[in-house]
């Protein structure tokens, strides 16, 4: 079957500047943390082989610049993404508030085939710091309201929950990728709008 081919999972990390995107990626891939990371300019990625449900897959994790204006080039990088990781800093409420626009912007630019069911994962980072300002409850509520996005609280510095979070990311990305392959690797065109109708109605009532 086609799904037995070697699988590449493309994961995009988004979030405000300085929430720890580069650190999370490096902690997960290289098991390292440094205080000397520079602000990311443009985009870069790391790859890591992981086993998901007894299958070896390659994760390609994309790290991007956090300042808003640089996102206009995002479309080149977001294309073909299988999962989007939204990161905020648990000590900085603004970075949490901006998750909405990061999510929206991703959906606009990446135009995934099935936006309602595109897998996101939310990471509340820097939980090693004392001055926490966004409660778990608040973060969880937001995630639930967005079609039950999985939520993890992490510390890239101390490696807390990073592996766990990325395992879920890989798993959900793989599910997305597999679904794409089964549907022939192109968007579901709107010849037959029925399947989505109910979903849309639910959304409108929110």
């Amino acid at each position, binding site marked *: 079957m086609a799904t037995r081919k070697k699988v590449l999972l493309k994961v995009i990390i988004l979030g405000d*500047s*300085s929430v720890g995107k580069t650190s999370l990626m490096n902690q997960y891939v290289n098991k390292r943390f440094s*205080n*000397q*990371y*520079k*602000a990311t*300019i*443009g*985009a*870069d*990625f790391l790859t890591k082989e992981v086993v998901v449900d007894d299958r070896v897959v390659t994760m*390609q994790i994309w790290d991007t*610049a*956090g*300042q*808003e*204006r*640089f*996102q*206009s*080039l995002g*479309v*080149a*990088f977001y*294309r073909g993404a299988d999962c989007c990781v939204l990161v905020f800093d648990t000590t900085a409420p603004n970075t949490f508030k901006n998750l909405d626009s990061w999510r929206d*912007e991703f959906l*606009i*630019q990446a*135009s995934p085939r099935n936006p309602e069911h595109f897998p996101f994962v939310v990471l509340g980072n820097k939980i090693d710091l004392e001055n926490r300002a966004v409660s778990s409850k608040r973060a969880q509520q937001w995630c639930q309201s967005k079609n039950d996005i999985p939520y993890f609280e992490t510390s890239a510095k101390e490696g807390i929950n990073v592996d766990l979070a990325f395992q879920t990311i890989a798993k959900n990305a793989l599910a997305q990728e597999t679904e794409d392959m089964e549907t*022939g*690797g*192109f*968007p579901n*065109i*709107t*010849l037959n709008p029925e399947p989505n109708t109910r979903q849309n109605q639910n959304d409108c009532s929110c």
Partner: protein
Amino acid sequence: MNSSWIEETHGDALELDADEEIFNQFDVILTRVPASHINEINEVGVIFIFKKQQSYFIEWKPNENVEIAGAEIAEDAIDEWSIINQITFKPAADSISILSPKLKNLRIPLPDIQQLKVQGPELKLYNRNDQHLVTYNFKRSTPASFIRVLQNFRLLKPSVHDRNCYLIKDPEFEKLQRSFAELNIEEIKTAKSPPRPFYAHGYELLSQIGKNVLGNRNDRISHQNRPGAYRFEMGSDTLSSNDTSPEMDNKTEVVDNNVIEERLPLRQIKKRDSPLSLKQWREFKTEDGRVSDPERIKEIIFRGGGEPSLRAELWKYLLNYDMWEHSKIERDERRKDLEEEYYRMKLQWTTMSKNQEKNHSGYRDRKCQIEKDVKRTDRNLDFYNGDDNPNIERLQAILLTYVMYNFDIGYVQGMSDLLSPILYLIDDEAASFWCFVGFMEKVFRNFDEDQAGMKNQLSKLRTLMEFANPKLFKYLKTHDSDNMYFCFRWLLVWFKREFSHDDILKLWEVLWTSMPCMNFHMFIGLAILDSEMKTIIENEYGFTEILKHVNDLSEKMNLQHILEVAEAIYYQVINSSKLVDRVRIIVGLDPINTYGDDPYNSDDEEEAQIKREQEMKLKVEIDHSRFVEETCDNALDQNYF
């Protein structure tokens, strides 16, 4: 067989300049598109096959364009690159939404396609790198007649492995075969095996051209003429000698290199000179402290930089903090004024109250970003290392004062990278600030809110690449990479992340001379790509791999070599007899409009066109509202209300 196909279909078309439509079908939906056409996904339109100037194209047009344009082909829709000027971060505001984005045509040159696959109502196109580019869904029919037409025109052949798969013939290749046949070059006519003798011939020709060019060049730049200083390098655009690769690629390589031979003189690598010494510098200083020949100084710095001990002094001139023509007295006076001005501006934010700050989100956002970034700017250098390092505070103070100096630019990521080496070297807060201002004068467009400056830079780099390295350009184009996004970091912060701290000091002072042209930093980019071309092409890198490869070059490159190659490419370009206007403009020469057939608009023209269109629309709106007003007035006059 093959050549007869060319004869038949091109027979009467040679004189024909107009398009010749050979197929169209309605109700075709785009279900997979390149990133440039993301807006067109799931749109319904018409698919055409047509011939233009002896080339075949597949073009999909959204229904709305078909009704308006009829058989005409919208020229502005051809260039995928044009999308780059249309991407904005925020969706259009209400006021602009009247100008709702027009759907674009999607035109694909047939030779760019390697194969077509038919699956039920779907037709999938794959490029020559086997990337799945586009899927058309023939909503009310199947792609069968589409395929039949291409077959009738002998533009494709069925794959022997898969009956639903068709391979596109490459007419360029076949044309080439025919022209070689006419030239009676036996090796090519039959060539399945690599045409080695022709390459040898090519080398001879190349070296002949080289000799001619060298003669001219030495005359032209006489002050740089040092016998023996030139080294000849067969740049990576020359022919590779391992000719065992498959037949198709070898032929296209011959074409490309013919183009290069015609277009560019041979590359001459000139060794870098030694840096400006203290002794030389003193010779240029007059008694009262003026610098006598700034142009010559810049020339020396361009060719060799400055001695490290001189650097701080030179930078102040290069960045317009000190003026070349000022005497020592005038200089001290100016420095004093500027210092006062700096501290006045600094006071504006140091005296801001908590409430003021609370009510000033623009300032707060900028400050917040600066605080985040200075903490992670060059912390590996001793100068910025360690907790509570006062130099981090100075970085922050200068950037915050810059926010006060130019609130519109404010602070954008990347600016702390530009400031850090300046503060490191100048080591005085006010002077560093003004030097930073001087640097920003050169690059402020990089930090445009809408990224227009960066898009423009990427587009210029692309234009230069197309002219100076057609082989790599063609490769990038066929591998979905000619958006040049992988050069973004290079251009934004002038290679700050690509070289070591020491090398950046050397590179920037070279670039600040603005010699030999304003856009010389782009030639640094061309030189880097030139030296990576072999790796990129041989490994068949796509966009992702190129980006990774380019990012990973960071601090692994030899700056002196890159500078030499960059200079050599620059001279190749400006000494080309085929220099087109769009390139002339980028290298700072006046356009001469000699090559009127130049098929591309320059960015500026493009911008002007966009502006004209916007003005037109605005005018229509104003006329409309005036009309409404007048109608109302008339109605009032006539007591209709």
